[in-house]
């Protein structure tokens, strides 16, 4: 049922009258109260924990609009100054609100109608809304829903917010007024000690930007308001005159526990829409990658195509199963984008094609690094064609990405770095260009590609340049999924096993890019979210047991990067040897350490007399494993692992992979790891 029809049906059944003063929705977990006249949300309580999230009714707000009247920026419509045309409880679980002919702060009324449905079902408070803009102006944003008085469970108990980004869950202090953007995360957590509020944009299509905004307000003598914190979701709808827009639903849920419980809320919704991508069989096995750069914009031509196979022989001999090749294309790494032609300075197309084939024949998949987001401003191609597809701001000025510095003192001092225009993925003509370049990667016969910087469009949110195949402004992130789908379709025609990988793709993009290069992140949220995703983590130290132990702990894929990915794996034999032991251990206990469900620290209790970390894996059989690593550089530790209701336990290490019986008391040498498993 579409939303418009829903609104009509609900209007017909709007039989419950409004109590004087307030209207409430309530179930066993949440209670939400609205002002019957203004429609403002005046109180929100998590009944399970008695946290009054929205506390003072006088600070209640329901929405705010920003209307772009020519010559008058920031012409706001404040919900607090409107009188609702309707506030109706249409069922025990639903409330319908409507505001018409909205009063603008700069005077006058605008023929705009906002209709909202608030639903409460099983502790899930959902805000739907539709906006009819019959004014002659564009509406840029609508803030809805709106908590006018976001409060902590207890005084002096700070609130923090967390969101999903780049394989982690960055944490920010709410009192600092953070803004979380849906271009990074479809949800944010608002957390206090051992409980939180989960807020979600229930639309994974990225059709427009939504910000989760926290706005601390100081005490105001002019309006008599006390210090408080406002929280709202800001929808950047850019609704043209005489159009209707259905807003992305916003969902709120309370939870008990830490971020894991908050992410569980997201996981439940994600399970309804996330399409698991295809992973070729080789990528499903325990394996490792390496990385090698051939060239930079400074034209150092470090690894000619004809030298590539000499590296490959080492990789094959050391069970490295994939190599990410960087700077193979014309202009070198971060030069010449978005071209995927080979570089004559490195050799011929045929030489590279043949080197790839020989490498893959040795069992090493070649993954070609590429970027389709940018156009190098120094190229003739940009000047002659690509400028047509660049994103521009409201003033028609080109957006730029600053480029990256390489090799020479000059570039490393940010002199002469190749700046890039930001290509518009919403533009079908540019998508054709991107597909044409991608076809060149496919033609080389590689086993996959890695789209570096797939996760962002530099500072661009909306493109205002005309003639891009739509009426601007266009949300540039809205082009990510369509372009990815087109690229995947092109790859499937050539080779369904062609692997897509990317640098820190957002969760929705991981439906296309199941391999994410993010390193070992501060919070293992991706592993916790989805056991099938592969997370690449670089290893560059010359005896890097610390990083390799973290990779084992966090179920990442080893990516060997000797000399910061400009060397050979034989350059760091100590690191390579230990990495191979870790992969051998993971292959032996694959059910736990590779295929098992990653539970982070849930399900075990570990204590030790030194610095340590641990994580829990659950195999499909239900049996558990605990990885404990000693982070001390020179001191052995004694650790005690407790697993409830465990049977017989065995312990294995990279150096002693045979499982030996244990009581759970482990002696772990410095810089080492132990895996304890239920037998």
């Amino acid at each position, binding site marked *: 049922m579409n939303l418009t029809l829903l609104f009509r049906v609900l209007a017909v059944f709007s039989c419950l009258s409004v109590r004087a003063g307030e209207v409430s929705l309530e179930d066993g977990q949440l209670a939400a109260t609205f002002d019957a006249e203004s429609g403002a949300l005046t109180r929100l309580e998590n009944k399970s924990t008695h946290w009054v999230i929205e506390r003072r009714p006088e600070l209640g707000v329901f929405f705010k609009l920003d209307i772009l009247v020519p010559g008058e920026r920031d012409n706001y419509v404040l919900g607090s100054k409107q009188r609702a045309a309707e506030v109706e409880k249409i069922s025990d679980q639903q409330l319908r609100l409507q505001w018409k002919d909205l009063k603008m702060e700069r005077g006058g009324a605008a023929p705009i109608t906002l209709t909202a449905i608030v639903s409460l079902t099983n502790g899930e408070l959902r805000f739907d809304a539709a906006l009819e803009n019959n004014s002659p102006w564009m509406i840029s944003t609508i803030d809805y829903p709106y908590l006018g008085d976001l409060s902590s469970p207890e005084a002096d108990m700070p609130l923090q917010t967390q969101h999903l980004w780049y394989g982690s869950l960055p944490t920010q202090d709410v009192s600092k007024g953070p803004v979380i953007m849906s271009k990074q995360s479809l949800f944010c957590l608002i957390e206090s000690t051992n409980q939180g509020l989960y807020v979600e944009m229930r639309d994974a299509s990225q059709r427009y930007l939504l910000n989760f905004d926290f706005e601390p307000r100081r005490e105001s003598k002019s309006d008599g308001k006390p210090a408080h914190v406002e929280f709202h979701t800001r929808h950047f709808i850019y609704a043209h005159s005489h159009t209707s827009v259905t807003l992305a639903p916003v969902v709120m849920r309370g939870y008990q526990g830490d971020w894991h419980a908050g992410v569980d809320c997201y996981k439940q919704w994600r399970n309804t829409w996330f399409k698991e991508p295809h992973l070729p069989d080789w990528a499903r096995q325990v394996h490792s990658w390496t990385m090698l*750069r051939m060239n*930079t*914009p*400074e*034209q*150092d*031509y470090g690894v000619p195509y004809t030298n590539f196979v000499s590296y490959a022989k080492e990789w094959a001999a050391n069970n490295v199963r994939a190599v990410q090749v*960087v700077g193979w294309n014309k202009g070198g*790494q*971060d030069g010449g984008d978005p071209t995927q032609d080979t570089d004559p*300075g490195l050799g011929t197309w045929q030489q590279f094609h043949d080197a790839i084939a020989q490498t893959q024949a040795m069992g090493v998949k070649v993954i070609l690094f590429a970027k389709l987001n940018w156009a190098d401003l120094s190229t003739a191609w940009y000047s002659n064609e690509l400028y047509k597809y660049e994103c521009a701001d409201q003033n028609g000025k080109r957006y730029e990405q600053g480029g*990256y*510095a*390489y*090799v*020479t*003192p*000059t*570039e*490393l*001092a940010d*002199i002469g770095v190749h700046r890039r225009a930001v290509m518009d993925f919403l533009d079908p003509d540019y998508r054709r260009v991107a597909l044409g370049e991608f076809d060149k990667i496919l033609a080389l016969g590689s086993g996959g590609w890695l789209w570096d910087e797939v996760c962002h469009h530099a500072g661009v949110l909306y493109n205002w340049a005309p003639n891009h195949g739509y009426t601007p402004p266009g949300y540039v992130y809205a082009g990510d999924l369509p372009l990815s789908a087109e690229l995947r379709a092109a790859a499937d025609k050539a080779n369904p096993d062609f692997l897509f990988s990317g640098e820190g793709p957002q969760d929705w993009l991981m439906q296309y890019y199941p391999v994410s290069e993010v390193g070992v992140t501060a919070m293992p949220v991706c592993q916790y979210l989805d056991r099938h995703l592969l997370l690449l983590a*670089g*290893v*560059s*130290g*010359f*005896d*890097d*047991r*610390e*990083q390799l132990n*973290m990779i084992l702990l966090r179920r990442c894929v080893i990516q060997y990067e000797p*000399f*910061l*990915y*400009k*060397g050979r794996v034989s*350059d*760091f*034999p*100590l690191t390579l040897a230990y990495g191979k032991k870790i992969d051998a251990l993971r292959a032996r206990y694959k059910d736990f350490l590779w295929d098992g469900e990653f539970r982070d620290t849930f399900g075990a209790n570990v204590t030790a007399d030194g610095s340590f970390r641990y994580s829990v894996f659950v195999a499909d059989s239900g049996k558990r494993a605990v990885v404990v690593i000693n982070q001390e*550089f020179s001191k052995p530790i004694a650790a005690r692992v407790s697993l409830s209701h465990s049977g017989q336990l065995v312990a294995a290490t990279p150096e002693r992979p045979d499982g030996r019986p244990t009581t759970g008391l482990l002696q772990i040498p410095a810089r080492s790891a132990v895996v304890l498993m239920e037998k």
Partner: protein
Amino acid sequence: MRAKLSFCPSVVFFSLGLLIFSAGLCFANGEIILEDNSLLAAFDADSGALARMECKREHWVIERRPELGVSFRLFAPLPERRYNPVLGQKQRAVEVKKISENEVAFQWKNLISENGGALPITFTAHVTLTNGVMTFNATLENDSPLTVETIDYPYFGDLNPPSRDSSLQAKTLRNNKIGAIDSDELYPHFRNEIGYWGVSWPTKTLEARQSPVCLLQAPDEGMCVQVGDSNAPYRLQYTFEQHPGVISSVNSLVPRGDKISGHTVHLEFRLCHFVFAPPHSTTNLAPVVLRCYEGGMREGMNLYQSRQP
């Protein structure tokens, strides 16, 4: 065939004197040495590389292994290929001459570039040591058709802390304010501060325009490195580069031995002059002044303030 030697008293006297003088000028093992009570610096007589340096009072061998010595490095991009370094290690000095008790003159000509062949560029340097103050002056005569973008000089190929168990930090001014000091650890941890994609070794660069002084500060002693021209007409950076890398990217620990997995462990330190010398031009480099001191950062900064250019 043995030469028949004839002895003339005056010649014998002169030769003996020359020998004594040469010994005083400290030629040893193919090195030319400048030395006073405070500092000793040895230069390779063939390449002109800085082979050894010692803060004598502190017994701190700051440049230790002669085989890691470097004279200079410059970059002269070609029209068709930007990457075209000139490595001092691959040049032979046409002159390394001790011209007085406290001064050595160096000259390199017709420099061999990595990708552009021999270039008609002459690099001339004078190093003086006076009362513990070592000054590096240099001039670049660029008769090539290329622009010389940068010159790294002086160049320490093997910067050492006082001992393996010691520590070393780079201390620089923040926005040229004496009271605001930034610290960057060099040893035992060395964190990469440059985008790792752009370098092969962990690297740090610090801006001389923010700080005309850089203290190489050990716990009880230090070396004050100072740009001797407060009006240098171009940008300068202090660059540190840890070879071959660190033990672990997690803790950034520098390997303690001289080798790890067959690679030589060494810390490079150089001053990079962004001269952008056009074709057929002569450029005088800003002088660089070194002094050793006992004590901590305060003593180092006092030394800097006492001798600002």
